[in-house]
């Protein structure tokens, strides 16, 4: 069976399995696409040998390992499971040339505490003679125990080691993982809408579109993603089953984002070019879920175009992104240039110059822009007075807030409130 993997592939796999075993002292085996063990690191436990012997031809081990590794392939990450013998294993699929070739399976381990009822359950399920209870119990007790929180890290480690084996294919795995993550967030948003009492009558949250624009304009990618997912959650909630409607809503969001990119100072020609490309792709995708993943990429592109950073130096870009994130998370507090500079480990004077150079905007200008954008959603809610909003946004008083707001929007907060209410 060894020729199932090419020699050079097997070399890397073996090397990485050894690495995993030496670090963790947890057994690790390589299975092929039928679930059979090709190679293993660490000695097989007596418990497993005995269990396989007792279940004989009906031994469910291979099948279970294979099933779990296929789940890992679907999820694009490692998968933790209880094996038929009641022990914990972690698996990560090996995909080479887009084909499922097998998997690494780490284990067995126990989590938390030795559970004496596992054996009783096996006896019942697999019709194992009661006389084997004692021996299975004693073998079971010596399986290593690893705390649940540590198991998660083990799973991460196995995943990293597998990614090293699969090389370029890791991007495929990442794509799948991102897809599930995206789905999870959208689902959470749907759940929240469901939990609201009047959910059936809830109108399209147009105010969220405005918030999305604001976040795109100021380069707050994380914030924009959260809003986008909320919108997608609403759209899927309200119109699931009607793909045409869902697709038109999603295309509409592309329009919103591209306008925001232009308003944010992006180059019109460049954005227009992007739009054409995006529409072409959008109409070639017929699956709503793929569209949801795709629109996140569109958002990334437009945010980048709206808030252009000097991208020659990756390190610089990362520092700026970190600073922007900090400002976006703390704009309502009394934050200073010194504080943000400290957060990115630069001296205040240097940071001030650096920020202006990379963003074409002064630190205080950016902070005010964030505060103005954020204040808009409160202006739509009549329960807050304008002076309350000024303080909530971190401005020292209402008149300064009004001045800054006018500067950006060309109208006063009061007029803005009237216009949109």
């Amino acid at each position, binding site marked *: 069976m060894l020729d199932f993997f090419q020699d050079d592939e097997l070399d890397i796999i073996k090397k990485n399995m050894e690495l995993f075993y030496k670090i963790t002292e947890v057994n690790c085996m390589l299975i092929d696409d039928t679930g059979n063990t090709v190679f293993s690191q660490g000695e097989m436990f007596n418990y497993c040998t005995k269990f396989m012997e007792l279940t004989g031809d009906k031994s469910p081990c291979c099948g279970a390992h294979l099933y779990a590794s296929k789940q890992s392939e679907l999820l694009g990450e490692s998968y933790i499971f209880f094996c038929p013998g009641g022990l914990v294993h972690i698996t990560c699929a090996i995909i080479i040339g887009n084909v499922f070739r097998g998997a690494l399976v780490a284990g067995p381990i126990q989590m*938390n505490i030795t*559970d004496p*009822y596992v054996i009783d359950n096996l006896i019942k399920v697999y019709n194992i003679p009661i006389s084997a209870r004692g021996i299975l119990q004693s073998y079971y007790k010596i399986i290593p125990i690893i705390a649940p929180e540590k198991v998660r890290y083990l799973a991460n480690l196995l995943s990293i080691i597998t990614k090293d084996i699969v090389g370029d294919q890791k991007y495929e795995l990442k794509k799948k993982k991102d897809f599930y993550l995206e789905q999870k967030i959208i689902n959470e948003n749907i759940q929240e809408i469901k939990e609201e009492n009047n959910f059936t009558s809830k109108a399209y949250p147009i105010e969220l579109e405005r918030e999305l624009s604001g976040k795109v304009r100021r380069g707050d990618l994380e914030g924009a993603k959260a809003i986008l997912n909320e919108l997608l959650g609403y759209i899927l909630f309200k119109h699931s089953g009607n793909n045409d409607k869902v697709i038109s809503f999603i295309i509409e969001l592309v329009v919103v984002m591209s306008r925001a990119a232009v308003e944010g100072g992006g180059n019109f020609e460049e954005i227009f070019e992007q739009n054409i490309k995006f529409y072409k792709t959008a109409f070639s995708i017929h699956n*709503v879920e793929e569209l949801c993943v795709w629109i996140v990429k569109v958002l990334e592109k437009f945010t980048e175009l709206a808030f252009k950073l000097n991208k020659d130096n990756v390190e610089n870009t990362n520092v700026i992104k970190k600073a922007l994130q900090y400002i976006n998370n703390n704009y309502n507090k009394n934050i200073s240039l010194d504080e943000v500079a400290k957060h990115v480990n630069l001296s205040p004077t240097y940071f001030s110059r650096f920020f202006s150079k990379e963003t074409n905007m002064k630190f205080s200008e950016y902070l005010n822009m964030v505060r103005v954008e954020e204040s808009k959603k409160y202006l739509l809610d009549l329960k807050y007075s304008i002076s309350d909003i000024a303080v909530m946004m971190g401005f020292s008083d209402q008149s300064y807030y009004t001045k800054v707001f006018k500067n950006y929007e060309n109208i006063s907060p009061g007029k803005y409130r009237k216009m949109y209410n």
Partner: protein
Amino acid sequence: MDNTLNEISKYVQEGQSIKVRKLTISALEKGYDYKQILNTLIDAMDIIGKKFKKNEVYVPEVLIASRAFNIALDIISPLIDPNVTNYLGKVVIGTVQGDLHDIGKNLVKMMLVGMGFQVIDLGVDISPQEFVDAVKKHDPDIIAMSALLTTTMITMKNTIKLLEEEGLRDNLTVFIGGAPITSNYARTIGADVYSTDAASAAEVAKEIVRNNI
């Protein structure tokens, strides 16, 4: 005041199966009704489910909690169905093809069992054909499908279509549920009942079976 139920909940969440087993037996000895214990177990899993959603716990913790939950359930199950002929109705339940998550489905199953339904659990990753085969084999009153991903919702539609083609749809109530499922979707694909949570699913099931009688 007796603290047994609180302790059961705490230890289920921690996955301490030995303690959960002892406490469940002790709760029964103290005269607690199995329904009280079952509700405690479901609440405990609900807490874990919420923590999981908020990234406060991860898969390993959920796994050991489910295990402790099942151990307690094994103890109280004989009390739930003492007499086969007394079943309120029969339900075939499963998570649809492509979906790997079963926390929600298990909760619904437990609630149904607790109410006196006979539940045939097909597990996860169930294809339309498997659902149809199960309906033929078990002749249930209700078929319940759960989906956790928007991509797998389509399987529900396909299952209903296949049930219709096989002439099995008429005397069958179709339940659907899961995070991305909405009442709109249920209507679109021709399902009979959509429920937002495990408890209401079980309540509706009870009502439906009673009305049919």
